[in-house]
């Protein structure tokens, strides 16, 4: 991230980064853009996290103490939207920007100017989204799933701004995805066939196709909302001949692939980290690739499992139940492969490996609760309770977020040229691990005992576990400040990192010096 002198002999016709603010505003360099994506993502992570703290503070005890129900609903909505679209997705795009060209031996992303634009759209979109908090009538308060007609006829005036923000995010994501696909398909080093691509590249290629397939669907559904709100149509208004359930079908046709968009790149990153710290090749490379493909395809035919209680006919109910259960098979294959990779390896547990191992264990727990939720009759009891909240936080926090932390620690030496502080990083891991489990595991119990989600106040029998959960959440939230400290410290100095700081790591990114020069692979490397 710091301005790096251009030392690569073959690059002497290039110049280094521009000076001052124009470097960041006008840059087309994949490393600069990657860094900006990561910084933006972490900022949004803290903002969304602060909102989660408000939610957990209100839920610390029964009764209303801190916020009113209207504001509580705004917090749950904004927390979800910011974490999904502002924290997790941009973090993966940031990792893709930094690492894809380095992994496939390309000098930059295929479409560098579009890359700049797709990043700078994001701060604009989130400025609009966050500004709704200060508008008359408040921010969106209908949940991140914004079900109609609560979000249309009954939505606050700021809903139109929310729709505009979602449109801009969608444009940004689609451009990012096109860039990823163009880079991977056209700019691989000679000799790197598809089945020789690193798994992070594979998972991102598939993720990019998912993005291109479903972001227009999201844009479509919010446009229909826009029409219903401002132009008198009745897509989702039954009194005008529309159907509120249509909203849910279209939303979840986007929404289910979306959850894989947030986890597949983490699958890829973990598939590099576990072999590196096991000092043993990844078990079942080909089956890993096929499993990701299978998960991506299945993700298009399971959307209605989010809607088991809306009253779809029994044939549909059965189809979506079976299809959903089927996803457990390729997901299981991936978990088995990771465990088999560790089996009889020579393991060490630096921070990236700690996060990766926790990822496998806790994501699997999230997978188990997902399998339980797939059983349609049982889902009638679980649906819209804290059991669901526990489930998706187990796949997203130790899944997506731990995957991102593991990647960050794994590649920080490459980005900064310095080793991060291992003791602090391990502290960050253990506090996050304990805090996260304390926050989210009791939510399973709350859901099974009957606590609905998205309520600002609850009956007395839920008091104990809510208190435990809040304490865990405060612990997890506070711990993330430590990550900021570690990264800043690592950028500013520390033990010099060699080109390949992890002795078991494989891949082209470790053949360039640390920190990676401003321009890399101007001449493509040869892959045997």
């Amino acid at each position: 991230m710091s301005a790096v002198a251009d030392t690569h002999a073959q690059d002497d016709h290039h110049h280094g980064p521009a000076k001052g603010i124009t470097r960041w505003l006008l840059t087309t360099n994949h490393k600069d853009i990657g860094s900006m994506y990561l910084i933006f993502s972490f900022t949004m992570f803290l903002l969304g996290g602060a909102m989660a703290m408000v939610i957990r503070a209100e839920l610390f005890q029964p009764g209303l103490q801190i916020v009113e129900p209207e504001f509580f609903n705004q917090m749950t909505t904004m927390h979800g939207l910011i974490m999904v679209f502002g924290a997790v997705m941009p973090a993966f795009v940031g990792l893709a920007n930094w690492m894809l060209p380095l992994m496939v031996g390309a000098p930059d992303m295929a479409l560098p100017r579009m890359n700049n634009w797709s990043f700078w759209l994001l701060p604009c979109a989130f400025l609009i989204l966050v500004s709704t908090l200060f508008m008359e009538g408040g921010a969106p308060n209908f949940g991140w799933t914004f079900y109609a007609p609560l979000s249309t006829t009954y939505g606050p005036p700021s809903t139109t701004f929310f729709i505009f923000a979602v449109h801009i995010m969608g444009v940004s994501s689609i451009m990012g995805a096109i860039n990823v696909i163009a880079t991977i398909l056209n700019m691989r080093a000679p000799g790197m066939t598809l089945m020789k691509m690193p798994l992070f590249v594979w998972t991102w290629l598939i993720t990019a196709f998912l993005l291109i397939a479903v972001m227009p669907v999201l844009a479509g559904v919010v446009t229909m909302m826009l029409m219903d709100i401002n132009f008198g149509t009745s897509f989702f208004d039954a009194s005008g001949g529309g159907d509120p359930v249509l909203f849910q079908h279209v939303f979840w046709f986007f929404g289910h692939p979306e959850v894989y968009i947030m986890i597949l790149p983490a699958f890829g990153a973990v598939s590099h980290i576990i072999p590196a710290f096991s000092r043993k090749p990844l078990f079942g490379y080909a089956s890993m690739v096929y499993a990701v493909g299978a998960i991506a395809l299945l993700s298009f035919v399971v959307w209605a499992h989010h809607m088991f209680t809306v009253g779809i006919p029994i044939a549909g109910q059965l189809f979506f139940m079976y299809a959903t259960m089927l996803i457990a098979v390729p997901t299981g294959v991936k978990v088995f492969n990771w465990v088999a990779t560790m089996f009889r390896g020579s393991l060490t547990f630096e921070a990236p490996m700690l996060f990766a191992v926790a990822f496998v264990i806790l994501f699997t727990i999230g997978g188990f609760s997902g399998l339980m939720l797939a059983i349609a009759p049982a889902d009638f009891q679980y649906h819209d309770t804290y059991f669901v909240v526990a489930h998706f936080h187990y796949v997203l926090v130790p899944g997506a977020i731990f995957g991102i932390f593991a990647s960050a620690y794994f590649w920080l030496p490459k980005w900064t040229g310095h080793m991060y502080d291992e003791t602090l990083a391990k502290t960050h891991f253990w506090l996050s691990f304990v805090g996260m489990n304390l926050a989210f595991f009791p939510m399973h119990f709350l859901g099974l005992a009957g606590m609905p989600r998205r309520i600002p106040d609850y009956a007395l029998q839920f008091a104990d576990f809510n208190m435990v959960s809040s304490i865990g959440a405060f612990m997890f939230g506070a711990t993330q400040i430590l990550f900021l400290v570690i990264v800043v410290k690592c950028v500013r100095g520390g033990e010099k990192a060699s080109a390949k700081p992890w002795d078991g790591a494989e891949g082209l990114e470790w053949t360039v010096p640390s920190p990676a020069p401003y321009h890399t692979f101007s001449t493509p490397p040869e892959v045997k």
Partner: protein
Amino acid sequence: MRVHAKRAGVLLGGLMTPALSMADWTLNMSPGVTGTSNDIFSLHMTILWICVVIGVVVFGVMFWSIFAHRKSSGRKPANFHENTLVEILWTIIPLVILVVMAIPATATLVDMYDTSEAEVDIKVTGYQWRWKYDYVDEEFGYFSSMSTSKDEIYNRIGKNENYLLDVDNPMVVPVGAKVRLLLTANDVIHSWWVPEFGVKKDAIPGFINETWTRVDEPGIYRGQCTELCGKDHGFMPVVVKAVPQDEYDEWVAGKKEEAERERELTEKDWTMEELMERGEKTYASACASCHQEDGSGSPPAFPALQGSEMVLEDMEGHLDVVVNGVSGTAMQAFGDQLNEVDLAAVITYERNAWGNDTGDMITPKEVFEYKNQD
């Protein structure tokens, strides 16, 4: 130092008291009181144990690697990276487990969808933020709103045992009879759930969903709305009272009589005091959740009534808004929700409460004429 410790102890004790005094560390789902809920419970336990067994095996291998295959204990890594037989096995075995799991799940689902041959039909309508139960065959219906007071919610007084889970008029069903529920909603999507019945179904405006239950044990069962439906989503409990058949019949007869008496009240000559008294109650149950108890509202979504131009001057407009609602906004049409007496009472109340003091009064007869004009 000791004083501080003592203070901290007291503070901590104070914080933890509500938690400890009602310690309820329930971990699992309840098997419930209906056939459906028992079937669901056994599916839940089966899939849970399957997950536990798979978890023990997978995490077992993993933890063994973590302990035994460390570099620090001098392990040299093996170099294998594929094994076709193992890979086929761990694809096939989970598939078989899933098929085995799908069979009982399918059977339960088919049973849950069979709403035929019901003995009692109840139409359940979700409103922001209360339920209405219409006994279709008996021609009466009533609203069911939460009865927990604001004082309890805002921690001004102690919390009742059934905090947030109590209503003024519970739904009543006969024990042992198959009850069919027809669910719909008036405004946004709600979801009707009683965990102990294993029944949860969305109530969707403009559509009617069907589900059923048969409760075999008399008792009071509590649940909540489970689909986010706006600001008071957390405050619309579901309470069902299951009673023996003869008690149910008696209750139905009483309700029908009460409905008849209400109809007669329209004809009665009402005084201002009577209307104000009734209006205050109606306002509290139908209007206060949006427009607030003191009529201050929460603009812009919910305008203030206190000092409102329409309330102070425009009687015709006021009547129109209350009876027909305002399309495209959260203001519902109360013409079908409230009877003429309540409509007259609440309008009179709004025009004379909180310093509005217009002295205007509208009678149930006038409301009746307004509603039936063309």
